[in-house]
């Protein structure tokens, strides 16, 4: 309760009731605050391994000195050792690899606090499940770990029959003997369904008399109408919507575990890439309470603008999609490790769900069996043009989700109509930019668009895309090589938790573009390892306008670093994904350290 009052007062009495209060604050800019005390010398010097700087001018160095949370020096050992004092800690990398830590260029941080409370029943590589006994084992371990009492829900994510050796769906009968007293929900990897046990069916009041709603599926036991376990789509969604929600306090307490998902993967800048108004309030509370030790970049959703304006600019009298002139002051600065980078616009859905928006139909029927299906936009172009122009006019960076080429066309039209040009350095980020056409690359260059690609699709859904779209379109998914050749700056992401928080897998999929089945999805679009690492470091930093602080190991930049147990530039290509994080540093401080073997 007190928190709420405090926040209100804070807003009312703050530096003007502006969004500026949200994150921009009274802290001096970081450069001022943390200029390394060169005369005091290095606190830590790393040497004795491979040090990849990600600096094009000098790709590798022999040693790195850190002080005051920043890189003090990077270069030859002799040169760097000049910064050593009696107090300097010398770290021998022992042949391991040190490089800039990774920047999550697009993902959903708000999924992390929830997921850490759930068991992972995904199949390899995202999780440990290959059989029904694996599921039971995972759920038991989870029940143990969280000391779940009788009647408390056991929730798991990533369930998919195709991972199961048994070749059939898991049923309530598989789960009941092991979990007679706890409702169990195994959420399907599509997030559109789940397997429930008997306690869960009782809890949601679904039984033999429950009718299957239109567009839904309730698998029944053979020879009866009793639900067997799996429910999908419209039978599942209302149930999921009514699940007991964790309290704010419970969620705040998971923020450490949530950040560890990132830190343990070598990521020190996380993105909350579709922030609702209530999520922003939650993140602000986490920040105010000092719970963040990694940087969190938030992109409020464009649809939430009216609510945010109402909350933070109560006296603003503009129309529903108008933004106050001073709103941009709220963007671009960290406060207690939380920053608003720009506004998220989404123009279509997902290609694997066939809800993306293409200019030409798929080769397969739509999600509802539609013929000649090409998906559809989420908003009419008139509205998109208006909203995008308002963001550009008010100087707010646009992050636009476009998966299909028609959605990309819409965004290009909107930017042209708003008078955008590359020379304005607006850094419009096209999130996913998945199914571009070759002609889009020139338009991106003209408008200064920068794609945040999602090459993991080649691995996870490559085969599906070839089936739905044909080789020509599927092979051009996340076309990083063509883009780089035309001078575009591209990042690459996991879309966490859509794919796991594994930067090394992202690097590998950009280099190999191999599907699960081993087919190379677009051989011409493979990039070299250096480029694929840049997408996770320098280019990602540039997209969020932090290139002067992050992305390379250069004197003056933040000491956001990661030690890897293998060199991603030289290990066998198929071993890239096996590289493990040994230690992660945020501004010189250890935020993750692998347990000794």
């Amino acid at each position: 309760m007190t928190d709420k009052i405090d926040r209100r007062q804070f807003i009312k009495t703050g530096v003007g009731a502006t969004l500026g209060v949200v994150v921009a604050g009274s802290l001096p800019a970081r450069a001022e605050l943390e200029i390394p005390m060169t005369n005091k010398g290095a606190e830590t010097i790393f040497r004795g391994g491979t040090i990849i700087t990600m600096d094009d001018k000098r790709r590798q160095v022999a040693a790195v000195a850190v002080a005051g949370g920043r890189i003090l020096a990077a270069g030859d050992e002799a040169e760097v050792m000049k910064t050593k004092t009696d107090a300097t800690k010398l770290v021998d990398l022992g042949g391991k690899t040190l490089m800039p830590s990774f920047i999550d260029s697009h993902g959903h941080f708000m999924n992390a606090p929830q997921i850490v409370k759930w068991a992972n029943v995904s199949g390899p590589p995202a999780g440990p499940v290959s059989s029904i006994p694996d599921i039971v084992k995972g759920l038991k371990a989870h029940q143990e770990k969280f000391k779940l009492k009788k009647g408390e829900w056991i929730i798991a994510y990533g369930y998919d029959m195709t991972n199961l050796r048994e070749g059939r769906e898991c049923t309530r009968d598989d789960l009941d003997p092991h979990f007679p007293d706890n409702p169990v929900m195994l959420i399907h990897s599509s997030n559109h369904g789940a397997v429930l046990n008997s306690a869960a069916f009782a809890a949601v009041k679904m039984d033999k008399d429950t009718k299957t709603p239109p567009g839904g599926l309730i698998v029944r036991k053979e020879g009866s109408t009793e639900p067997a376990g799996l429910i999908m789509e419209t039978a599942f969604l209302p149930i999921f919507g009514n699940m007991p929600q964790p309290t704010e306090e419970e969620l705040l307490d998971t923020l450490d575990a949530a950040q560890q998902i990132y830190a343990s993967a070598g990521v020190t800048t996380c993105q909350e890439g579709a922030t609702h108004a209530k999520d922003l309030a939650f993140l602000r509370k986490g920040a105010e309470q000092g719970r963040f030790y990694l940087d969190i970049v938030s992109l409020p959703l464009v649809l939430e603008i009216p609510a945010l304006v109402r909350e933070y600019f109560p006296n603003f009298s503009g129309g529903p999609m108008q933004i106050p002139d001073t709103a941009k002051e709220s963007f671009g600065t960290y406060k207690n490790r939380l920053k608003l980078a720009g506004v998220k616009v989404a123009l279509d859905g997902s290609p694997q769900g066939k809800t993306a928006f293409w200019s030409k139909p798929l080769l397969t029927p739509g999600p509802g069996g539609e013929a000649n299906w090409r998906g559809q936009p989420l908003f009419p172009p008139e509205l998109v043009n208006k909203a995008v122009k308002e963001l550009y006019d008010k100087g707010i960076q646009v992050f636009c989700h476009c998966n299909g080429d028609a959605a990309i066309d819409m965004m290009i039209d909107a930017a042209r109509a708003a008078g955008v040009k590359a020379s304005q350095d607006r850094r419009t980020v096209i999130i996913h930019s998945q199914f571009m056409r070759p002609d889009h690359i020139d338009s991106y260059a003209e408008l200064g668009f920068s794609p945040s690609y999602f090459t993991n699709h080649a691995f996870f859904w490559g085969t599906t895309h070839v089936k739905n779209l044909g080789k020509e379109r599927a092979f051009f998914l996340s076309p990083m090589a063509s883009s780089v050749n035309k001078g575009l700056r591209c990042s690459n992401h996991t879309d966490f938790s859509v794919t796991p928080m594994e930067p090394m897998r992202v690097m590998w999929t950009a280099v190999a573009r191999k599907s699960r089945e081993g087919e190379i999805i677009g051989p011409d679009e493979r990039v070299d390892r250096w480029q694929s690492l840049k997408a996770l470091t320098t280019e990602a930093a540039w997209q969020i306008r932090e290139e002067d602080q992050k992305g390379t190991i250069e004197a003056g930049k933040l000491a956001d670093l990661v030690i890897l147990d293998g060199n991603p530039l030289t290990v066998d290509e198929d071993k890239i994904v096996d590289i493990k994080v040994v230690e992660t540093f945020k501004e010189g401080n250890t935020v993750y350290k692998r347990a000794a073997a």
Partner: protein
Amino acid sequence: MTDRLPFTVIGGYLGAGKTTLLNHLLTHAAGLRVAALVNDFGSVNIDVDLVRSHDGDTINLTNGCMCCSLVNGFASAIGQIRVRADAFDHIVIEASGVADPAKIAQYGQMYELPLDGIIVVVDAEQVRTQATNKYVGDTVVRQFAQADLIVLNKTDLVSAEELSRLRAWLAELAPGTPLIETVGAKVPIQVLLGAHEGRAPARTEADEAHDADHGHRYQTCTLERAAPLSRTTLERFAAGLGEDIYRAKGFVCLQDDPDRRYVYQQVGARWSLEPGAAWGSEERRTRLVVIGRQGATQARTLETLLDTAGPLVRPVISITADKAGGSG
């Protein structure tokens, strides 16, 4: 049962007049308490005299209606209404301009709400351009095919020739779907919404007063019969109404369950027969109101659709006057 509120979906592209239709509906609710779910809250422009309170994402009206924003998602809005289900008779959902109204209807049904009908509003002046737009053309055309009733709005902005071309074109894209032509989306609530359990289904002449200038001629016929009807008779009746009938609704006394009052609903080709409360002391009698284009609700024609179980007791015809001309 009280949380099983019937719902109507209003679809149609940006600018067609969905919100105008909704405003009209909310302010002329004629005793029905309507909960409306809207996408663009800012554009709902209700007569200030009718607004009782306006808090956050809801507007409460003095006539018992409510308007609720969909910004926090469909589930949340429906949940908000379901906890107050006793306070409402009907839910109206305004689909976004690019939504498939049939998909919205499916969402509603997954909450086990009975679908009353899908109404698609069409901008007579802009629809041709919209239908050829490279981004939304196919979506616009798909919306027609999903309609139970098409409201062709803003007919005053096109010539008579264009209007007749539009009619033919729409008939091709949405064969058999009744079409109402309007100016200012003024469609009588009796046409828009079906019958409600526990409320008199018949409209009175007084209710029609405000329909006077909606640019369209309506005709109402009330069919009554004392002898219980068979399900087959009703099926034949429903299938036989045709595209000049917009709406049929009322209570039915059914042969195989004569103690219970059944609620009959039809809009376009979509119809349903749902068991309601017991007749109790009320006289057991089927009473159906049929609303259609002027000249279409010929009692004799309708009569033949109910010809298996005894003669009609009393066909009643009323004609609504029409200032604006229209199609009649």
